[in-house]
């Protein structure tokens, strides 16, 4: 497995940024200059050579360079056009105008939306929203205008989490027109409100304008953040655990139940199961069920095996109250494994001390179990009754599962070969090589072979044939 990782990178030669060579050369040059006085000639020569070299490099790399994608600029279009639908009226304050200018600069919308790459872009955008609009959130509350006795107000939800629709209404029905910046799809409802749809997280400014007045309303279409947490139970013990939450993109979390958040961390927790509820500054809410486990780094090692013999797999697992830690198994023969359950094949018989190291944060504990591995020995029955009664009619032996080579002989007591077979699944049915039944009596069975670790085995057994 590790070899695969190695192989993957053996011929991994990504394109080097071209500017890097000059940087490296400059750095080396700077360093040599500081230890040696420079001559103007050398500097001049250097400059010439750098230019020449860059030219060479450029010609070498240029053809491949054309289809190189620029991940930063790709898939993005900046909105630089004037907003089409924003009505220009006297009632816009200069502050409003300044704000709109900023919007034009800062809002970038990814054009694609299917691949993971684009998904990342959406997050970028989201992050942008989070950082650049934060101060504006509080003062973007819209004010009703009252001119010539016409009073209306746009009502709606300012933050829309994980949805693409927003509905806005008017407090009073007054004839007028809706517009938005940036332009989005919207549909007018019966009561003169709108249902607006967007595809990506963004901030949209909706304007309703009547003949004499206008009102604006900002809606933030935001994605919920990806909430993760880090659990620390530092004492290796029973209390004072803490949970630190992180969100991507960065959001300010407020706990909705009673826990006190300090730097996104909740401290002094005892081992228990907690249900946390949060909301962020966009009023997106989050729920998280977290278990602060007791760090009970203890348990017993269980083993299971068909045969506790060399060449047979032995299965290991652990009984413990908690499983929230990392395990390192040392099998006592120099081999190692990770994981809660594991298996191991001992190559040689012997007595092994199996050690299991349980690790969690700063805490660790080692538990042990002694295990005795016997020599891989086939089972050799000593009585054989090939009388076609369905019982014990074929003489079979069990050999190590992993036997690489295998052969078995039957000899009479004078040493003549009676029968032989090489497939462990087969056996002897009491007939000689010529196909005739052999007489009752004592015979010698010899098994020979190598297991997968090239350990040679040879067993002999005297058996009695009775019909």
């Amino acid at each position: 497995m590790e070899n695969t990782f190695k192989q993957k990178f053996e011929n991994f030669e990504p394109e080097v940024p071209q500017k890097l060579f000059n940087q490296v050369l400059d750095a080396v040059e700077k360093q040599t200059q500081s230890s040696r006085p420079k001559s103007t000639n050398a500097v001049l020569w250097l400059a010439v050579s750098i230019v020449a070299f860059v030219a060479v490099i450029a010609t070498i790399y240029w053809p491949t360079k054309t289809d190189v994608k620029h991940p930063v600029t790709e898939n993005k279009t900046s909105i630089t056009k004037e907003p089409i639908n924003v009505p220009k009226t006297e009632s816009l304050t200069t502050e409003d105008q300044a704000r709109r200018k900023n919007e034009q600069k800062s809002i970038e919308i990814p054009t694609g939306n299917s691949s993971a790459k684009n998904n990342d872009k959406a997050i970028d955008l989201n992050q942008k929203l989070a950082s650049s609009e934060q101060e504006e959130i509080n003062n973007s509350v819209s004010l009703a205008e009252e001119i010539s006795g016409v009073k209306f107000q746009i009502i709606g939800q300012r933050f829309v989490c994980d949805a693409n629709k927003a509905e806005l209404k008017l407090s009073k029905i007054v004839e007028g027109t809706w517009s938005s910046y940036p332009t989005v799809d919207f549909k007018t409802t019966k009561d003169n409100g709108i249902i607006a749809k967007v595809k990506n997280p963004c901030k949209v400014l909706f304007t309703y304008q009547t003949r004499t007045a206008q009102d604006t309303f900002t809606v933030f279409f935001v994605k919920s953040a990806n909430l993760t947490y880090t659990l620390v139970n530092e004492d290796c013990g029973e209390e004072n655990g803490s949970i630190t939450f992180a969100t991507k993109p960065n959001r300010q979390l407020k706990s909705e139940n009673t826990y006190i958040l300090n730097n996104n961390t909740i401290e002094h927790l005892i081992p228990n199961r907690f249900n946390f509820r949060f909301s962020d500054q966009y009023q997106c809410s989050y729920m998280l069920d977290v278990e602060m486990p007791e760090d009970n780094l203890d348990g017993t090692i269980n083993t299971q095996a068909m045969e506790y013999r060399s060449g047979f797999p032995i299965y290991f697992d652990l009984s413990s109250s908690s499983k929230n830690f990392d395990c390192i198994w040392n099998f006592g023969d120099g081999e190692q494994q990770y994981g809660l359950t594991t298996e191991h094949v001992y190559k040689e018989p012997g007595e092994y001390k199996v050690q299991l190291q349980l690790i969690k944060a700063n805490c660790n504990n080692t538990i042990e179990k002694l295990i005795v591995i016997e020599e891989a020995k086939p089972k050799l029955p000593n009585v054989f009754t090939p009388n076609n009664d369905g019982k014990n009619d074929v003489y079979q032996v069990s050999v190590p599962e992993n036997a690489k080579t295998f052969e078995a002989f039957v000899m009479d007591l004078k040493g003549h070969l009676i029968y032989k077979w090489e497939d462990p699944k087969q056996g002897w049915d009491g007939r000689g090589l010529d196909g005739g039944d052999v007489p009752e009596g004592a015979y010698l069975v010899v098994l020979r072979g190598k297991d997968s670790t090239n350990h040679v085995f040879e067993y002999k057994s005297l058996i009695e044939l009775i019909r």
Partner: protein
Amino acid sequence: MNQKQKDIFSDLYRKYASYLYGVCLRYTKDKEDAEDVMQEGFIKIYNALEAFRGDANIKTWMQKIMVNTAINFYRHKKVIDFQSIEKSDVYWLKSDNEDVFSTLTAEELLNLMHDLPDGYRLVFNLYAIEGYKHREIAEMLNINEGTSKSQYSKARKMLQELAEVKLGIKEINVAL
């Protein structure tokens, strides 16, 4: 730097920069860091060129210098965090699924590695790719052998998790 040195150096750079940049990318979290390490490493290579024994493999030798530079880079930044980043359900619910890795290209794996915490990435690189033993890694990084092992196993699990997430088996974000 005289003409001859410069020629040798430029030659080395042209021949191996691409491969060594790959090494730098593996050890760092992004391209900027990789470029820093690369620059630093090449300065060291230049300084050590005279001491280079002709019988050693120059590619391996340069790679070793890069690796050491990368280790020092993070050590100086004091950002190696060998504490575990516990996400209680990650490390034991899943059995190790090697298939996840076998289908990945170097670029894809690299992309996942960039998301690893620095400590995990360092140990993963040294053990799985460079082929150092945990004992040697422990010495190099001045940590316990056990830490190296557990960091490695966590790195594997986390990579697996990342691979699954990025291959689309799981969604990270709620779709808008």
